[in-house]
C-alpha cells in the first residue's frame, strides 16, 4: 500500500483545519474552512464514498461558505476579528490526554474494509444481495436510503423543511 496520495492529503487537511482555527480574520477562517471541506470531499472520494463526497463538496465547500459570508456581512468590521485569550491550564493538560485515550480506543476498531466487522455482517449483506432484484436499483446507497430505510429519510426531509421554515420565520425582515 502506497501513501503517496494519502499523506499529502492528510497534511493538507490538518493544515487547513489548524489554519481555520488560528487565523485572526473571520472571513479568512470561513474561506479556509471551505478549502478544508473540499479536501475532506477528496478524502471521501478516495475512500470510495462518492455520495458523501458529493454532499461534502456542495454543502461544505459551497453553500455553508455562502451562509457564513452572508452572516458575516451583517456584522460590523470590528466584530470580525477574533481576540483569543490563552487557553486555561486544565484544557492544555486534559485535551492531549483525551486525544491519547481516543487513539488507544481506535485500536479496537475493525480494520477498514474488514468483511467480518459487525457492521458488514448484520443487515448489509441482505441489502447488497437483494437490491437489484427487489428495486432494480444498482446503487445500493440509493436503495437503502430511499426504500429499505425510507422512514429515516422521510424524517430527515421533515427536519430540512422545518429548518428552512424556522430560518424564514426567525431571520427574515421585509424591506418595508
Amino acid at each position: 500500500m502506497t501513501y503517496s496520495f494519502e499523506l499529502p492529503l492528510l497534511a493538507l487537511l490538518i493544515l487547513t483545519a489548524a489554519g481555520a482555527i488560528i487565523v485572526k480574520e473571520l472571513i479568512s477562517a470561513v474561506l479556509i474552512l471551505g478549502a478544508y471541506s473540499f479536501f475532506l470531499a477528496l478524502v471521501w472520494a478516495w475512500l470510495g464514498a462518492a455520495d458523501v463526497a458529493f454532499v461534502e463538496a456542495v454543502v461544505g465547500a459551497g453553500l455553508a461558505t455562502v451562509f457564513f459570508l452572508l452572516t458575516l456581512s451583517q456584522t460590523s468590521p470590528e466584530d470580525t476579528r477574533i481576540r483569543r485569550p490563552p487557553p486555561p491550564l486544565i484544557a492544555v493538560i486534559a485535551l492531549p490526554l483525551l486525544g491519547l485515550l481516543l487513539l488507544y480506543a481506535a485500536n479496537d476498531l475493525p480494520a477498514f474494509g474488514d468483511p467480518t466487522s459487525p457492521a458488514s455482517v448484520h443487515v448489509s449483506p441482505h441489502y447488497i444481495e437483494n437490491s437489484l432484484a427487489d428495486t432494480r436499483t444498482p446503487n445500493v446507497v440509493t436503495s437503502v436510503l430511499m426504500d429499505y430505510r425510507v422512514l429515516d429519510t422521510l424524517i430527515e426531509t421533515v427536519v430540512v423543511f422545518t429548518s428552512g421554515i424556522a430560518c424564514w420565520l426567525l431571520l427574515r425582515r421585509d424591506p418595508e
Partner: protein
Amino acid sequence: MIESPFGSVIVRRTASLLVSLVQLFALYVLFFGQYGPGGGFVAGVMIAASLVFGLLVFGENSATAQRATRLLAGDGVGLLLFVAVGGLCLIGGGEFLNYSQAPIPGLDSAARRYLGILLTQVGVALDVAVAAVSIVYSLSRSVAAGKTDA
C-alpha cells in the same frame, strides 16, 4: 449586499455558463442516482447552489433571482410529494411507504419500487432546494433591512 451586481466581466461570463451547467448536472445526478453516485439530497443542494451562485453574481433583479423567488412558492411541495407516495401505498393495501403495494397497474413489484424511489427522490430534491434558497433569502433580506435601518 445582494442588490448590487458583481462588476467583473470574467465572473459574469463564467457564471452565466456555469449556472445552467450545474443545473443540468443536478438533473443528471437526480435521475441517475439509482445507477451512479448521487440522489435527491445532492441534486436539491446543487440546484440551490446554482441559483444562489447566480443570485450572488447577477443581483436580486436578474432572471436567476426571479427563478429562485418563484422556487420559494414551492415550499412544502417536495415533502407533500414524499408523503403522498407513502399514502398511495396505504391506499394500495400495504404499509406506509411500502412501494411494492402502490396501486399502479401493469407493473411488477420491483418496477413499482423503482418508481417509488424515483418519485420520493424528486420530492427530497425539491424540499432541500427550497429550504437552502429560503435560508439564503432570509439571511440576505435581513442584510438589506439592516442597511436601511443604519
